[in-house]
């Protein structure tokens, strides 16, 4: 079934020959994350980010993405948490206002799934990450949905007393939902 959908996707994309998608429909897109605090999943969101993307569903491997997230726009669930998380031991948003992802490759995983890998920079540290995602065409828009786990301590997010992972888990699930509009030629 997924294979069939994927084929259909390729076909429809093929019909629109080389249809590239890029500009982000910001108000429909989101970058969210889920942390675990004492085993309670707590959702957060970044209200401001920019994404320069170029993706052709017919030739996904040529895709490119540069995503910049304004860490000061974080909503971690409460005013108290927002203040805390922008502070030195977490994002240190004053000295490192942005987190960024630059893709180095896009791959087709099969079964309607894709993957991008690239460099994630947060708080002055740059590490390789991979993020699987799905694609779906909605009217004339391309909808990209994916998530990947990130170990916060790899980037020194939540240091000092907060490095106790029995309270706030090391692993944070990052989710992205991008709605791309066609590139106008």
């Amino acid at each position: 079934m997924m294979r069939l959908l994927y084929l259909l996707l390729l076909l429809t994309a093929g019909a629109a020959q080389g249809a590239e998608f890029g500009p982000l429909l910001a108000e429909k897109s989101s970058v969210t994350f889920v942390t675990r605090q004492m085993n309670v999943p707590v959702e957060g969101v970044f209200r401001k980010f920019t994404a320069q993307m170029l993706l052709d569903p017919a030739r996904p491997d040529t895709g490119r993405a540069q995503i910049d997230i304004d860490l000061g726009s974080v909503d971690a669930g409460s005013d108290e948490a927002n203040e805390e998380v922008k502070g030195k031991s977490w994002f240190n948003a004053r000295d490192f206002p942005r987190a960024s992802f630059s893709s180095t490759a896009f791959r087709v995983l099969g079964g309607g799934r894709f993957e991008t890998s690239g460099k994630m920079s947060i708080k002055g540290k740059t590490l390789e990450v991979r993020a699987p995602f799905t694609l779906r065409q909605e009217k004339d828009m391309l909808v990209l949905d994916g998530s990947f786990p990130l170990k916060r301590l790899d980037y020194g997010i939540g240091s000092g007393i907060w490095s106790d992972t029995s309270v706030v888990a090391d692993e944070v699930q990052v989710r992205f939902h991008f709605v791309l509009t066609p590139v106008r030629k």
Partner: protein
Amino acid sequence: MIPARYTHTAIALHWLTALLIVALFPLGVYMADLALSPLKLRLISYHKWLGVTVFLLLLLRLAWRVSHKPPPLPDSMPLWQRHAANGLHHLLYLLLFAIPLSGWLMSSAKGFQTVYLGLLPLPDLIGKDKALGDLLREVHETLNMAMLVLLLAHIGAALRHHFIERDGILARMLPFLERGDSR
């Protein structure tokens, strides 16, 4: 006349609840004023687990009480006192229900689900809503202050029965100090 005793189950449930309240109350006051820290998050979780336990114990108690009539108050007590005792006990049951419930709802409104013992997620009965969360926190606090006052009256009355009236009312809720017939 020596009044009949409460059942062992009723006595166990009563004192277990009392023990938990004695732990929960200061824990709540202490953690509420802490600055955000891992310790605070940990204590809030423990507080919620203990609070949910009180709620579960209350459900057990209510089920037990419906099926096991408590021993009647002695005729030696003036009628108004018997009514007062009855009313007070009902109010305490009401608070033992309303306080954990307000805590549970508050947690949901604050967007922080309750996961009992870190294992069993309780459903969020209401969605995230900051204003409602702040209101429920006030409700939780106010109900707790009300309970504090009622508990002082409850304890005061129990001690008065024991040391002044010497009518065995306290003894029938004590696990030791068996006096006369137990049922």
